[in-house]
């Protein structure tokens, strides 16, 4: 596990099956329970992934989103990409070529906190401000 500023980068194991997922989640779960977890999962080592692996990715994303955080994938191998695509899960994630790119994408902006039940973003600016900003 690496921490780069507010972003946590974790490398997924070679095998992402039921047994491996369990031990990996034990490690990741405390991080997911923090406020606004920004997590990058480095998929470069993955050789094998089954439905348990996909389920784990979805679980992590759900947990991160619940706490106004996000989960991004980096260095997804073609084989893993095919699995994600077949299960139509790929469209849920932002995928980057390298972990550095994924980390950088977190560091530019961060969403503002909003009350429960409110949309997480409602643009407060007027058109004139937008023009001035652009």
């Amino acid at each position: 596990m690496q921490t780069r500023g507010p972003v946590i980068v974790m490398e997924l194991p070679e095998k992402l099956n039921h047994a491996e997922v369990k031990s990996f989640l034990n490690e990741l779960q405390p991080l997911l329970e923090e406020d606004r977890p920004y997590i990058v999962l480095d998929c470069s080592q993955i050789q094998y992934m089954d439905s348990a692996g996909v389920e784990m990715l979805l679980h992590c994303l759900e947990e991160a989103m619940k706490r106004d955080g996000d989960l991004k994938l980096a260095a997804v191998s073609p084989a893993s990409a095919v699995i994600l695509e077949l299960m139509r899960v790929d469209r849920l994630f932002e995928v980057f070529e390298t972990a550095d790119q994924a980390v950088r994408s977190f560091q530019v902006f961060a969403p503002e906190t909003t009350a429960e039940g409110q949309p997480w973003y409602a643009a407060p600016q007027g058109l004139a401000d937008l023009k001035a900003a652009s």
Partner: protein
Amino acid sequence: MGLGALVVIGAGNRGLTQSRVQSPEVSASLEGSLLAAPLECVEVAGRSLVERSLERFAAVNLEAISVLVESDALIPPFRTHCRNVKFRVSSDLNMAIREELSDYSRQGIEHAFVNWASTYAETDLLDLFSFHREARQAVTPTFDQHGPLALWVVDCAKAQPLPIEKLLRAAGVNGPSEYFIREHVNRQDHPRDLRQFASDMLRGRCRTGPCGREVRPGVWLDENAEIHRRARVVAPAYIGCDSKVRADALITRFSNIERECCIDCGTVVEDSSVLANTSVGIWLDLCHAVVRENMLLNLEREILIEILDPRVLRATGASRKFVPKIRETQEVLKQISDLQQPRQVLNAWQLGNNNNLIQE
């Protein structure tokens, strides 16, 4: 030495520069059925191609910019005000171009860009003008790797005596020096090009970008756009003015939701353009499509569908209430009640009990 620009809105350029394999008739019919306005007038990521072209001309401080349009109804809404822009409505665009060039010439404007707004080219306009001036020709046509473009530089005085359509059409054939454009070009020949343009903008492949504010990398939100905290927007994506993305919806893969749209609960919008004033119903999966009000064009299968059920797709202002035909409903209810009637089941075959066999 003055320099002006004519930006032309209308379908008149198709014969001049069409270079795609697909037939112009197919494009025109799709465009006509799906869209209320020409493609160049449709807002993509907040602004139309016409407005983006006008901004490019305004940025080089031209003396005059004229927008020639076939009818008032085709003038798209503009978000920004450009100086020196005047509008002229004319049913004969070629005649209007000639007259404008003549006016320019009288005003001392010697050269003018002529650009059909369906072609958007991010070239260095001053470099193009310098090229034209050095070539000393009446018309300098432009082209890119896919063929000729609907962008010319015209010497106002030299071009006047010639019919403009012939002049522009002949420019590429008779071999005057042509200007090659290496930068980003978008031809709006087909609704697919709208999608391509949105995708290019969101990926940062062109200089022009989505309107609004980039709230996180690759996610642009325009004025009063709302995204529910349980919705997910995967970058890059654009959500337009006053649009709403409701709970559990997913906006992904370079999708653009234009102004005053609603993406209802649980719906996935993937690699699609939802054009202004469109409401998409709950738990739908919208992929590789361009949608406007109740029309859906699937770009993979090239099928245009009109959806009559307003619970699925509708204009934002349209009523959501769906009333099925009463007679059909009653028939269905009767069939259901018939099925629910307990049937008389005989335990064993008995003589005299089977009415079909024994008649008194």
